[in-house]
């Protein structure tokens, strides 16, 4: 993949596989937690708050897993940008370049929403502020949808060309 020296001096290239595994591991936790959290919202939207403790646990896991997965992805990014996208995808499979750009941009745009879910798990009392519950549910659904999109997009990009 790298025609010259391995990695060509790119940051974290030597640990790219470890980073990819950790990034994928974080994504697995994230997709599970965000899906469970979004499913909990159906109870909230019906005014049933009996599973509040479980919901708040999912929200905290989503928040932490999102930030960790995001940070690991950011560390892996130079290896991808140079050796996957720069030397391969842009030349031979440009549609996957666009797909990855969309994935990273959507991940950035949703970061604040994911962190907000975790922070609100500490302060939100759904029984006292039912009007805010709808906003909270929409936030949960947005995070879940973006996580699903990013996992599928990530798998498709890796299927086109991995970090080696």
């Amino acid at each position, binding site marked *: 993949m790298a*025609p010259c020296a391995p990695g060509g001096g*790119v940051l974290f290239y030597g640990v790219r596989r470890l980073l990819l595994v950790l990034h994928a591991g974080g994504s697995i936790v994230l997709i599970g937690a965000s899906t469970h959290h979004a499913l909990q919202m159906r109870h909230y939207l019906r005014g049933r708050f009996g599973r509040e403790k479980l919901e708040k646990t999912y929200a905290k896991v989503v928040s932490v897993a999102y930030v960790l997965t995001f940070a690991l992805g950011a560390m892996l*990014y130079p290896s991808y940008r140079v050796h996957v996208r720069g030397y391969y995808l842009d030349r031979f499979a440009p549609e996957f370049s*666009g797909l990855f750009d969309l994935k990273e*941009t959507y991940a950035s*745009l949703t970061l*604040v929403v994911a962190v907000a879910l975790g922070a609100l798990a500490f*302060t939100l009392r759904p029984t006292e*502020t039912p*009007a805010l519950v709808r906003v909270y549910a929409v936030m949960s659904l947005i995070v879940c949808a973006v996580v699903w999109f990013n996992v599928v997009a990530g798998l498709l990009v890796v299927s086109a060309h991995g970090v080696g």
Partner: protein
Amino acid sequence: MSDPRTPDASARVFAAFLAARAIFGLAYLGAAVGRLPVFWYHPFDHTWELARKPAGLAMGWYGLTAAALLAAAAGGGITYLAGARGPLARRLRRATFVLALAHAGGLVLLVDFAYFGWTLTHDTPKPWPEPKCEAEAR
């Protein structure tokens, strides 16, 4: 007993994050569309460059995200602090105000998703030049 002049804690946190989210979206979109100067990372020599357009091969995502995060943190922090007392605190006691903030933040998010969804899937990438090995250069 809670102070009637201060809003509920969750309303303040909600407002802070909704403001932060809206500011993040506007900053990200504004910097990308307006080609504002951001920090570009040069992956081969590990240097940073503040520019509208980088000289040579560079990555803009770090700088764009960091700039938007900084703006969002500042905006969210100010909103949280301003929500403790005063006019904003009075407004935050009404759920309709927080819902209006949420609608604004949601609209910005929708515009972001639509704009970047369209441009990034319709952009033709320019491939980087093939790397030259030192051995070949000799």
